[in-house]
């Protein structure tokens, strides 16, 4: 393992120190491992709190700021944060209009956020509503699984719900917007290599040189199948076809198309992929209304990418275009 770290045990605290130094506009509570918008709580605005295991940077802390999240909780690598962190974050951003928890659909995240919401409501009476993101079509959603994983759509939910909250909408309205994004978004990912968790020191799974894993999760969970490495146009088809097969993307105002890097893939390859994705969409008669290309929800040093499509309408496009000012996503300001 070759990594730019001091001690595997201190990766998260060291990174948070660097994050605080680089972004003085946000507050970092090092003891609780939470990142809070500098001017929080914003009176009268719904507070948005998310969080999850570390290793997906810039998600979630990179999206804290005006127009997006009010606070993010950092867990251990690939491990849900604990309720104490979520309670502290919720209290820090409660501006009197309630707090929305944005939770990726993983067993640990669900249970810890559930406990946190119970603790907050018992303690302070602050109203908390949770929205679960589960957009990964690689997983069969059935009684026999933990359900679909929350992946790329999380970034879109945080941006769009953040814009809705900035407009001064109520907690239930912001939650409805977040649920709408989740309902209209689908994702599928692919790994060319495994990631290496610093504390483990070796790759999470073996993936031979000539093979790739289609349907990978963002923690190195296995996907649908292993296939020989293929050209980008074929890979794009392997990712986009199951998405289009799962939801009818025609007939709206086009899609917000998001090609995400898993952490170990250069941007130039993501643009090669984006070109292939747009060609498939053009053939399917689906216009690309907006785009996002880059590593926004990563899996440490994994090479690979994911594709997320969000079926757009006027409201979602307007909220997507609204100003945002965070360390990892900034425009219109």
């Amino acid at each position: 393992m070759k990594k730019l770290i001091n001690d595997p045990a201190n990766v998260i605290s060291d990174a948070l120190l660097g994050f605080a130094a680089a972004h003085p506009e946000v507050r970092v509570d090092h003891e609780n491992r939470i990142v809070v918008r500098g001017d929080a709580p914003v009176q009268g605005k719904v507070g948005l709190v998310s969080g999850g295991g570390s290793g997906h940077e810039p998600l979630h802390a990179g999206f804290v700021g005006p127009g997006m999240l009010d606070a993010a909780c950092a867990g251990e690598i690939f491990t849900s944060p604990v309720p104490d962190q979520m309670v502290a974050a919720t209290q820090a951003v409660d501006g009197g209009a309630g707090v929305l928890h944005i939770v990726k659909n993983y067993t640990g995240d669900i249970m810890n956020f559930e406990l946190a919401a119970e603790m907050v409501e018992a303690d302070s009476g602050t109203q908390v509503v949770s929205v679960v993101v589960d957009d990964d079509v690689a997983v069969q959603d059935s009684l026999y699984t933990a359900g679909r994983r929350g992946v790329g759509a999380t970034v879109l939910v945080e941006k769009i719900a953040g814009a809705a909250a900035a407009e001064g909408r109520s907690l239930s309205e912001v939650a409805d917007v977040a649920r709408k994004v989740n309902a209209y978004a689908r994702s599928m990912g692919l790994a060319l290599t495994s990631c290496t968790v610093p504390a483990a020191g070796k790759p999470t799974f073996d993936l031979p040189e000539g093979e790739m894993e289609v349907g990978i999760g963002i923690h190195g969970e296995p996907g649908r199948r292993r296939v020989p490495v293929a050209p980008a146009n074929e890979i794009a088809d392997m990712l986009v076809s199951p998405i289009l097969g799962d939801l009818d993307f025609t007939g709206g105002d086009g899609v917000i198309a998001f090609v995400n890097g898993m952490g170990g893939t250069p941007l130039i390859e993501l643009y090669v992929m984006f070109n292939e994705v747009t060609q498939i969409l053009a053939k399917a008669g689906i216009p690309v209304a907006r785009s996002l290309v880059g590593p926004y929800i990563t899996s440490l040093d994994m090479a690979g990418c994911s594709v997320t499509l969000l079926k757009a309408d006027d409201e979602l496009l307007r909220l997507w275009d609204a100003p945002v000012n965070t360390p990892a996503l900034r425009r219109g300001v």
Partner: protein
Amino acid sequence: MGAEAVDAWIREFARLIAANKDELTALDSAIGDGDHGTNMDRGLTAVVSMLDAEPQATPSALFKKVGMTLISKVGGASGPLYGTAFLRMAAAAGDEVDLAKVLRAALDGVIARGKAEPGDKTMVDALAPAVDALEAGAGLAAAAEAAAKGRDATIPLVARKGRASYLGERSAGHADPGATSVTLLLTAAATTLGDQN
């Protein structure tokens, strides 16, 4: 059974978790995300520090502190599940700890929090048979053996809960890490509490 006995039980559980940390992590790497040993060891290490710093007067208070510490320190799915189990044990422990009663409460708590059923390849598969054995009048050694049998019975199962469920059929062939750590909890009880029950 008083707070001292419960204290000894929890310390032995912490020792077994530390001694089996690598095995738990290896099991979790096979079908989960490879952190069960590390996370449980971090939580139980914090529990032992808490017990050293703030000895508790009653079993109920002790179970509660253990539960709160695990919720605060473990994270993942194990934190809320073990934390809820110990909080329920605190609520069920009266002046005299009836192990069958408190472990039944723990099992109910785990099921309520995790929504797992027997056969889903989870903690429940080791805890439920141990509770059944205790309720049938068996001693702790027999209950620990029932937990171990339940753990071994998870090997051929296909996981239906948690991260392992993403593997589908590929989750068969490995013991469930949660059922394995629950077996350590029962083994620790058998070692430290003997036939007190």
